[in-house]
């Protein structure tokens, strides 16, 4: 038996990473287009209950590799195991959700297989018979189309949020679990996992904030942060920031919003001089009302904002501050 579309599940301590379901949704939609079935593969140690859980996720099969060498995630372990799974199952497509873990091992797997990986795709589309994968370049400013030629396995990772896990099709029969017994003897694990931990608790808990004014690199220099603080004061809002603003030390790290910062969902989110890179958006897209101020009309932030102002922020912000003060 072999699989057509193989989705790689991501888990930590037996808990499924929700973005795996997004990849399954991608697999299901793709499967419909191509008339192919979807299977999941989970790696780890003692993951039988996870495997059980996965059977209800609308896949035909759940493959598992259960091995001591996979008890902690390591790139050697994952790439070594998946290489064998893929060789054995020969899927046409191998799909991943583009998580930080996938970033870490999928390229290695690709190299082992000598099969290119299209990473961080935002969607796919059909162009005639050709399946076109779309990924962003230049930090979301431009889209690029890619296709595969020849037989699989073709490796594709999808951006987190590119597919909606709510669209998961679970009506069909439960999938069957199939344990794969691979020989992991030849897989040498060179990295030793010492610890997995949550970073120091943030001093500022932005997730509780009602209103947030977030500033991005568009403020140009640390000196201009002050004007943004005035805006925040006028709105009664907390300050947030995109990553580069924190990296440069213009605001402390605990103000960072995004995939590696805090995830926030205030009633009101001002994104000032923020382009709207995916890593920022995942941290704030569930905000109630989003206001974006950016001088570039093509900035991706306008895709998710409710109100947009295309202008020089230095012209607009002082006026917004005085308008707020007046009202």
């Amino acid at each position, binding site marked *: 038996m072999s699989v057509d579309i193989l989705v790689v599940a991501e888990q930590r301590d037996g808990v499924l990473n929700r973005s795996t379901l997004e990849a399954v949704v991608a697999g299901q939609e793709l499967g419909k287009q191509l008339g192919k079935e979807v299977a999941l593969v989970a790696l780890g140690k003692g993951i039988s209950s996870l495997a059980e859980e996965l059977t209800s996720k609308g896949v035909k099969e759940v493959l598992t590799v259960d091995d001591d060498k996979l008890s902690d995630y390591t790139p050697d372990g994952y790439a070594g195991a998946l290489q064998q799974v893929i060789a054995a199952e020969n899927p046409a497509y191998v799909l991943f959700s583009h998580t930080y873990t996938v970033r870490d091992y999928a390229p290695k797997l*690709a190299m082992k297989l*000598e099969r290119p990986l299209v990473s961080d795709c935002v969607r796919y589309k059909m162009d005639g018979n050709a399946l076109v994968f779309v990924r962003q370049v*230049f930090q979301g400013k431009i889209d690029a189309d890619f296709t595969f030629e020849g037989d699989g396995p073709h490796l594709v990772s999808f951006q987190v949020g590119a597919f909606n896990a709510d669209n998961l099709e679970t009506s069909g029969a439960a999938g069957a679990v199939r344990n794969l017994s691979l020989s992991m003897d030849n897989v040498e694990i060179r990295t030793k996992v*010492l610890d997995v931990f949550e970073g120091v608790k943030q001093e500022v808990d932005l997730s509780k904030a009602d209103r947030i004014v977030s500033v991005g690199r568009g403020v140009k220099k640390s000196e201009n942060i002050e004007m943004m603080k005035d805006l925040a004061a006028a709105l009664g809002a907390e300050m947030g920031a995109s*990553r580069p603003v924190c990296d440069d030390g213009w605001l402390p790290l605990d103000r960072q919003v995004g*995939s590696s910062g805090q995830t926030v969902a205030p009633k009101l989110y001002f994104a000032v001089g923020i382009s709207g890179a995916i890593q920022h958006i995942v941290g704030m897209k569930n905000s109630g009302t989003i206001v974006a101020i950016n001088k570039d009309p093509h900035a991706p932030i306008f895709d998710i904002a409710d109100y947009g102002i295309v202008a020089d922020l230095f012209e607009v912000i002082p*006026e917004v501050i005085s308008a707020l003060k007046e009202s």
Partner: protein
Amino acid sequence: MKIIVCMKQVPVQDSLLKITDDSRWVQEAELNYEINESDHYALETALLLKEEHGGEVVILTMGPRRVKEAIKQGLAKGADRALHINNESFTTLDIFINAKLLAAAIQQEEADLVLTGLQTDDYGFGQTGVILAEKLGLPHASIVMEILKQDGSIKVKREMESGWFQSVELPLPALLTIQSGISQIRYATIKGIMMAKKKEIKELSLSDLGLAEGDVDDSTSSLKFHKLYVPEKTKQAELLEGDPKDVAAQLVHKLKNEAKVF
């Protein structure tokens, strides 16, 4: 400790990008370039390690002639010398080929540590570093936020989603992809800039790398790149227009009466 830092030049962050007529790249004539953001941090990390443990920092860059500028900046900040693969005649998007070229250069040096940025700000594949590690047979860790050198090994802190981290130990030699923000980057000092001119920049051709034309032929890759285009908008924000005073008033009005956030 000998550290090789891979650095790439990319169009400056705020560039106005125009796609070429054949839709395959952006118009380069009016672009200015800068060192890829996370590569800056990779260099900084290397320099800090060298300051603490001694050794040598070697910059490795692939690109056309203009990347000399980036190299000089790196040398001015304190790198000891540089390797430059001039790929003007064989530029490709194929990551495997690019990794092959970089690996060939790295193999000529016996490095203890290879550092790359975690992804580039142009293509943003985020794969080169990890693929390079596999090519070189080195263990790797990506999205690295902290490094502690020990005897024969290193302990690193890797970033994961939502404020989580993984702490791992790797034997040396190893490859790390460095995340932006790992440390504050230094400014090139006048002293460093003046000293940079005495440092060696070695040009590497294909044959210097022990490779031939066929090794850089990407026509057999199963992955085909087709075109670039400005993304179609999915959901557009309601755009407020007018002079600043006007839009400010509209915004406050809408926040109050439509969005009712006050």
